[in-house]
């Protein structure tokens, strides 16, 4: 069973006091696998590359040094097969099976980066035989979006449409 309540909180932890609906996203899911497995999927390159970007994009490279200050870098490949430039971020908090925080505002060793855009906070907790996980994407100045536009996510909404078409096809 997968519950989806993206952006519409139906339970779980309260939103943090500093939540800014104009700039932040909160996505909450319950998935029927234990937290240990969810943790692996977020923290091991061989797993992360299987899912970290929506189709028809794919992951070309993943670099993970799983400790505070350690590098987190993902290079994405667009549907045409080109690998997009990637700038390394770093982990801020690493609490196994519970909490993972990283940002692109700081690079490896906490060195400030040129184009800070977001910090991500992923928390997971057991729920029944499964896991409730919450992913928060905390963004800085929306003007900083330029970088992500370059990465291709902002060129219309073709990716979303492709996903929807694919989804509907699987519905038979």
């Amino acid at each position, binding site marked *: *069973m997968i519950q*989806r309540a993206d952006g519409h909180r139906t339970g779980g932890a309260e939103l943090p006091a500093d939540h800014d609906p104009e700039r932040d*996203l909160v996505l909450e899911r319950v*998935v029927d696998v234990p937290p240990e497995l969810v943790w692996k999927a977020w923290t091991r390159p061989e797993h992360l590359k299987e899912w970290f970007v929506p189709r028809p994009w794919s992951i070309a490279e993943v670099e993970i040094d799983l400790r505070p200050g350690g590098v987190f870098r993902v290079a994405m490949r667009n549907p045409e097969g080109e690998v997009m430039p990637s700038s390394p971020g770093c982990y801020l908090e690493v609490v196994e099976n519970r909490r993972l925080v990283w940002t692109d505002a700081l690079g490896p060793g906490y060195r400030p980066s040129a184009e800070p855009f977001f910090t991500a906070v992923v928390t997971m907790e057991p729920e029944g035989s499964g896991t409730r996980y919450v992913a928060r994407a905390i963004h800085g100045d929306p003007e900083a979006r330029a970088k*992500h536009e370059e990465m291709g996510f902002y060129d219309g909404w073709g990716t979303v449409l492709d996903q*929807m078409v694919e989804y*509907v096809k699987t*519905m038979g």
Partner: protein
Amino acid sequence: MAIRRPELDRVFHALSHPARLAVVERLSRGPASVSELAEPFDMALPSFMQHLGVLESGGLVDSTKEGRVRTYRLAPTALAEAEGWLGAQRALWTGRLDRLDDYLLQLRDRAPDDEESP
């Protein structure tokens, strides 16, 4: 069980027919006239127009008429949440987590050998 937002249900319903899906796929490459859209289908024009009507009332497509030619195009309003920088981020994260959940269930269903500890 999947909790979805109504506007997405409407969009999915509009897409839940092969002909309508094919029309959307065609329009994702650019606007087209009714005759262009109908051409691949072995379907009476009134039936085909009904499908276009479902897509239009579902907010997936818009149409404009110039002279005798009605041209259809994809309607950004159907996927308004993918508009704007935050919408684009939401689309990214939603698509990402959809894949994650699918992948997690695949991992779970694999042989236990695949889930060794580090």
